[in-house]
């Protein structure tokens, strides 16, 4: 078989897996949700099509507040994340090499949303670390009676989302910046009398935007529909829409499944509406921006706000780091009365006393992460190699297809899919959970691996071909070993994404597959911070260890290969 034919076969296989494994199920899940939203769910005896579910949904107490809160936190967190990420990149770009930045941001990328949220709750709560620090100064003798976590405005939730998303956006922006000559543009702009901040806003931002639009949409979709962060940091009554819906889906009263499905469809509608909003904001800003540009102001006033935002970003990183330490500290604390800054006594009892449940959840989390990551990695490599052999780039629709699972709110199709799986007798098994997680692991692995794969020196496989090596030998003996570092980095990202999955594990596992994440989220509402700390620490530990391995293994294997060191991210 010729390499081109081989490539076609590989591409067709990867595409078939994606179509049957991703698009089909998402569409089927959405359809199932839509049917239930309009009253059709034979499994619970609902056979009367109509608008009843919507009426029930709109009539739920606090429903309007839930929707408002969802929009406020989702849009607010996204806009703030983008602004801070841009300000940080603009302020630190000159001093920050790509790889150094990646290394510094790794812990924030690695830790699951739930673990960060739990750590933040430990830090921000009235009985948490920050209040403990300031208590002596303010003369407090008991935790203040303030809702600092779960506040009715969703400020804590926005804070949590921003801390988690800014590092992702900074990395995406830095990698986009490598595609054009930033230094020259800065020099050219500054020589015309524009301030640094003005050049960033007027010259670089418009060029950056198309490259970071899709990742920003992913952030937006997540921020609008997060369940675990909403549960831990958001207000509880009424909560954000996704949390409300999860409650309805798991309510003992199965009749509530119908309004829950209507809400899930509404959640998808909110995402579509938000995307439309971004699109129209882009068009409006283009006009306003051109008007602003043509006025020729040198923009000296732009500098201070940019600095404030960047400084705010650094403060948020510090809080995030504190949150991570707080998880670990609580898991080892024994007596820690308020307002002591450090525990009075330390103990391993929370770890040793956690019982066999901890070990089981840990093992299951690890197995799920390893299996889903291997599957995703194999598929990504097949896809990329197929592109190479067909000697063609990626079509726009293929790129959109890869991002699809990250753009559709999980809750909008996962429950519908679960119903479908139930009917097929597939629900509640490890297999269903593996598949559901892989749905979200694959896009990230693919995104992480695509750029380094394409950056591989094309003369290497050519040299191998001229020495008689066929396509498979070129792949196995040349490309994969040379790409070891980026492949392991992609794998670490895959592990982190898998470990972080809450809703897919909960829904597709029918609540019966307990992982570190589902346990940690459940425990977060319980009272014992030590046990929660243990689960959350371990939950954060798995991805952190994966990243460490992704860094150490290539360094060890290639310790004697200068050309391959420093090439790793």
């Amino acid at each position, binding site marked *: 078989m*010729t*390499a081109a034919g081989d490539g076609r076969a590989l591409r067709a296989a990867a595409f078939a897996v994606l179509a049957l494994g991703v698009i089909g199920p998402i569409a089927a899940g959405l359809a199932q949700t839509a049917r239930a939203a309009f009253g059709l769910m034979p499994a619970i005896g609902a056979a009367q099509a109509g608008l009843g579910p919507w009426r029930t949904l709109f009539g739920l107490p606090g429903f309007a507040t839930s929707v408002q809160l969802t929009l406020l936190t989702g849009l607010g967190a996204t806009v703030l994340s983008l602004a801070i990420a841009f300000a940080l990149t603009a302020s630190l770009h000159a001093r920050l090499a790509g790889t150094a930045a990646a290394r510094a941001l790794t812990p924030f990328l690695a830790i699951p949303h739930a673990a960060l949220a739990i750590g933040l709750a430990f830090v921000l709560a009235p009985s948490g670390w920050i209040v403990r620090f300031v208590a002596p100064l303010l003369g407090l003798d008991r935790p203040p009676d303030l809702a600092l976590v779960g506040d009715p405005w969703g400020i804590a939730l926005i804070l949590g989302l921003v801390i988690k998303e800014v590092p992702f956006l900074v990395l995406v922006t830095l990698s986009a910046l490598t595609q054009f000559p930033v230094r020259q543009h800065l020099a050219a702009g500054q020589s015309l009398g524009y301030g640094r901040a003005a050049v960033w806003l007027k010259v670089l931002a418009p060029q950056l935007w198309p490259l970071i639009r899709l990742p920003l949409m992913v952030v937006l979709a997540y921020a609008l529909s997060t369940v675990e962060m909403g549960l831990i940091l958001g207000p509880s009554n009424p909560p954000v829409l996704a949390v409300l819906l999860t409650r309805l889906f798991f309510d003992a009263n199965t009749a509530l499944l119908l309004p829950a499905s209507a809400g899930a469809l509404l959640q998808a509608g909110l995402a579509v509406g938000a995307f439309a909003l971004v699109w129209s904001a882009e068009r409006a800003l283009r006009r306003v921006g051109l008007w602003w540009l043509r006025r020729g102001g040198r923009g000296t006033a732009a500098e201070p706000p940019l600095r404030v935002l960047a400084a705010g970003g650094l403060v948020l990183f510090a809080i995030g780091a504190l949150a991570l330490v707080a998880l670990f500290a609580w898991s080892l604390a024994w007596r820690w009365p308020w307002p002591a800054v450090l525990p009075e006594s330390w103990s391993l009892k929370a770890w040793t006393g956690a019982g066999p449940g901890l070990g089981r959840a840990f093992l299951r989390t690890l197995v799920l992460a390893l299996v889903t990551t291997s599957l995703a990695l194999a598929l990504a490599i097949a896809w990329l190699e197929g592109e190479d052999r067909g*000697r*063609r780039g990626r079509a726009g629709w293929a790129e959109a297809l890869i991002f699809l699972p990250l753009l559709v709110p999980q809750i909008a199709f996962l429950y519908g899919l679960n119903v479908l799986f139930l009917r097929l007798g597939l629900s509640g098994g490890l297999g269903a959970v593996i598949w559901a997680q892989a749905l979200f692991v694959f896009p990230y692995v693919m995104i992480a691996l695509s750029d380094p794969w394409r950056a591989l*020196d094309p*003369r*290497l496989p*050519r*040299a*191998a*071909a*001229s*020495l*008689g*090596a*066929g*396509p498979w030998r*070129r792949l196995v*003996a*040349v490309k994969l*070993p*040379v790409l*070891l570092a980026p492949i392991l980095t992609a794998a670490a990202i895959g592990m982190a994404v898998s470990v972080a999955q809450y809703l897919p594990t909960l829904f597709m596992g029918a609540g019966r597959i307990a992982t570190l994440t589902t346990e940690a989220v459940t425990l977060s509402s319980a009272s014992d911070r030590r046990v929660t700390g243990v689960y959350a620490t371990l939950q954060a530990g798995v991805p952190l260890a994966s990243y460490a391995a992704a860094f150490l293994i290539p360094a060890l294997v*290639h310790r*004697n*290969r*200068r*050309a*391959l060191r420093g090439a790793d991210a």
Partner: protein
Amino acid sequence: MSLVLENLQLTLAGRALFAPLTLTVEPGCVATVMGPSGVGKSTLLDAIAGHLAPAFSMTGRIALDGRDLALIPPEARRIGLVFQDAVLFPHLSVGDNLAFGLASSVKGRDARRGAVERALAQAGLAGLYGRDPASLSGGQRSRAALMRTLLAAPAALLLDEPFSKLDTGLRDEIRAFTFANVRERAVPALMVTHDPADAEAAAGQTIGLTSIGETP
């Protein structure tokens, strides 16, 4: 065993890069192709080696030892490539790079190791089997890359500006080493270069490629 190009022409978006090229390179000879940058010298080598990008199309015929290469995949063409900068595999040691090239007809661990060691010695690289290719000097790297190519027992060689990155003193030495090996193994070689001194040292035919459609 000769390399034959017959009325070879490459077109990009309907525009021919150069006038049809006809050329026969005899075994042990080095033919030189010269021409301004952008005329398509490297694309010509891509076409012969089988790596022509899909945007280009080719008319005419490429034959090696009487066999038409058009439908043969790159790895089966038995055409060795020598690049400007050696392009040694960065993840393999110097010796393993050569072992990668060594034809699989050489069987047995000891025989293969011996063949590689002999080739290393021949290239003045004795004792460097385990070295990181990144730690070699420019000249050592060039010799290692040539040896890797020759160990695959190619039926023809393509040299893509093979000496242009070397210092003047080193250039003469590597050039002599390369051409001596071409002669000794009696393979036809086609070299692309900017340097008239390369063409002179090759002492074979020299073809000047000019772009068509533009008058200089």
